[in-house]
């Protein structure tokens, strides 16, 4: 109940009882309350003219890094006895050091400046206002006002450094890079043996082949290494990522950031498609600028459900044919068809799939029924992954209790050897 209202009610009651019973002492009892109310009225804030300024030590930081926020609130009106200034911090951010609140008295023309540090999880945060609650010293009259400020903060996902990711798309670009191009030329890896040509280094001569055929000289040919087009597809569907109040989505984001960085460092052209409530497309590009652009876009995205598409939808016109696609998704059985269709159209597919079964099971009680259910779902998932592998798709099943670096080192650094008969 409002304090003023409560106090007034009590005064009315005492006056009424005093009158009704004709007891002057009861009326006299109400006088301290009346005086208290009058004091509140006398010192109640008239008009509030506060102005706020905000500055941040950085607008883009990595997850775990701290940002120093400096706030200055100046009073351009009459003196204020008690002002509670509270910076409105969005969900996902937390105060690491200092306080986002101040309780001060502000004289006319006075100001207060303070700093505190923030940290938070991946995301975009608008720091747009400070809430000022101005009151008299008795706390009877309170006036709330939002003071607008400028401020935004991007918290980028952490980027894991991977040594290399072995991919071999069927089509590469003309620029030199690190992806084997399935063509002979200058490179590092042995590709073929051909007749010696003028200009070949003597070190390239294959003496064994030359000895077998004395009439000719043969030299080794190496596999060309070029840059490739890599399309990253991040699945942000709520139905595949969310399990009650837990989400596996952050693991997919982590893997996406790590692989985008690795591919870009290797000189490839990388684009990012995010599929969640809507489709977000980061145009393909090279180098550090593109890396920053992808990280920036990764900081903005949140899982959601599309109203238009129930299933995974990959607009093929965005990706050059026979290029490398990397899908980050926990996967559901309905995804098989679209992935297999992409594969048959010549795309080279790598699927990094954070394991939703072990992720969800970690948060559940280990009852007999749960264990049995887990086994059944694990078998279903194993069947799905096996079908995908059978279709020539490189699937990395990531148990999220393991660090991604370990999984990447084990399963992504080596070139995939597909089973016999599988489309290459």
């Amino acid at each position: 109940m409002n304090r003023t209202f409560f106090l007034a009610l009590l005064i009315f009651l005492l006056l009424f009882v005093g009158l009704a019973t004709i007891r002057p002492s009861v009326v006299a009892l109400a006088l301290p309350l009346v005086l208290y109310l009058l004091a509140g009225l006398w010192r109640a804030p008239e008009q509030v003219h506060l102005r706020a300024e905000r500055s941040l030590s950085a607008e883009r930081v990595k997850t775990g890094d701290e940002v120093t926020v400096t706030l200055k609130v100046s009073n351009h009106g009459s003196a204020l006895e008690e002002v509670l200034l509270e910076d409105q911090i969005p969900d996902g951010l937390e105060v690491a050091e200092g306080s986002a609140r101040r309780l001060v008295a502000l004289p006319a023309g006075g100001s207060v400046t303070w700093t505190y540090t923030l940290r938070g999880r991946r995301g975009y945060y608008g720091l747009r206002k400070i809430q000022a609650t101005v009151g008299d010293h008795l706390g009877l009259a309170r006036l709330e006002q939002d003071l607008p400020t400028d401020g935004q903060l991007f918290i980028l996902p952490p980027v894991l450094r991977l040594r290399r990711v072995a991919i071999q798309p069927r089509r590469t670009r003309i620029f030199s890079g690190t992806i084997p191009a399935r063509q002979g030329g200058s490179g590092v890896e042995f590709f073929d043996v051909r007749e010696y040509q003028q200009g070949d280094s003597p070190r390239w001569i294959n003496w064994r082949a030359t000895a077998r055929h004395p009439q000719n000289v043969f030299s080794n040919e190496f596999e060309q290494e070029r840059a490739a087009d890599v399309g990253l597809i991040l699945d942000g569907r709520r139905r595949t990522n969310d399990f009650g109040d837990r989400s596996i989505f952050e693991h997919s984001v982590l893997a996406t950031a790590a692989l985008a960085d690795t591919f870009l460092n290797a000189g490839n052209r990388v684009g990012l498609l995010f599929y969640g409530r809507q489709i977000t497309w980061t145009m393909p590009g090279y180098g550090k600028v593109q890396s920053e652009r992808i990280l920036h876009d990764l900081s903005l995205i949140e899982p959601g459900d599309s109203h238009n598409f129930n299933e995974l939808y990959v607009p093929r016109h965005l990706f050059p044919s026979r290029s490398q696609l990397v899908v980050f998704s926990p996967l559901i059985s309905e995804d098989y068809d679209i992935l297999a269709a992409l594969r048959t159209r010549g795309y080279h597919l790598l699927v990094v799939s954070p394991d939703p079964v072990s992720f969800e099971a970690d948060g559940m009680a280990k009852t007999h029924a749960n264990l049995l259910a887990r086994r059944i779902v694990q078998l279903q998932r194993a069947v799905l992954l096996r079908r995908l592998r059978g279709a020539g798709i490189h699937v990395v099943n990531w148990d999220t209790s393991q660090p991604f670096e370990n999984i990447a080192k084990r399963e992504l650094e080596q070139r995939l050897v597909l089973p016999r008969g599988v489309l290459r």
Partner: protein
Amino acid sequence: MTRILRFVCPILSVGLLAAGYFLIGLGWPGVGLLVFGILWIVGLALSWDWIPPLGLFAAFGAAALGLFLDPSAGLRASLPTGPYSLLGTGDPGRSVVFLIPGALFSLLAWDLAEFYIRLRLASPDDDIAGLERRHLSRLVVLALAGGGLSAFALTLHLKPSFEWIVILMFFTVWGIGRMVDWLLKKES
């Protein structure tokens, strides 16, 4: 300071109210007030939001009831009285010496409980001692003024007619109503 005073004031409040009741000869209600005092203290310690308003309401209610039930007469006889009596009827009993200060301390307790909540919102860099000092000094002045005003009202010997009483009460109620309305409007 506030942290200690917010416990001291309820203790003084229920203690004085209970003393007033014992003086009237109402032992069991006095004991009831002491029990309520314990509940009040426990509620404050456990940060029950509803206990300070309840304490204020109960303390003023108990004080009013005590003043109503006090059969003794003669406070005015033992006090140097002025030429007027506020309503011209009724001579408050001796219990008023305990009951009105008891109620006054409950007002202080209610105020300090709220002030303590506001202080908890302050950051360590704030001038908490200064805020406390200013608040407590004003509160002491208010309490003394309120108590003095009540005491003065009790010593007045004014004998207005019934019509004047009604008009006076009407203006009092209207005035307080306007004041509350103004405060509420300022808040919104």
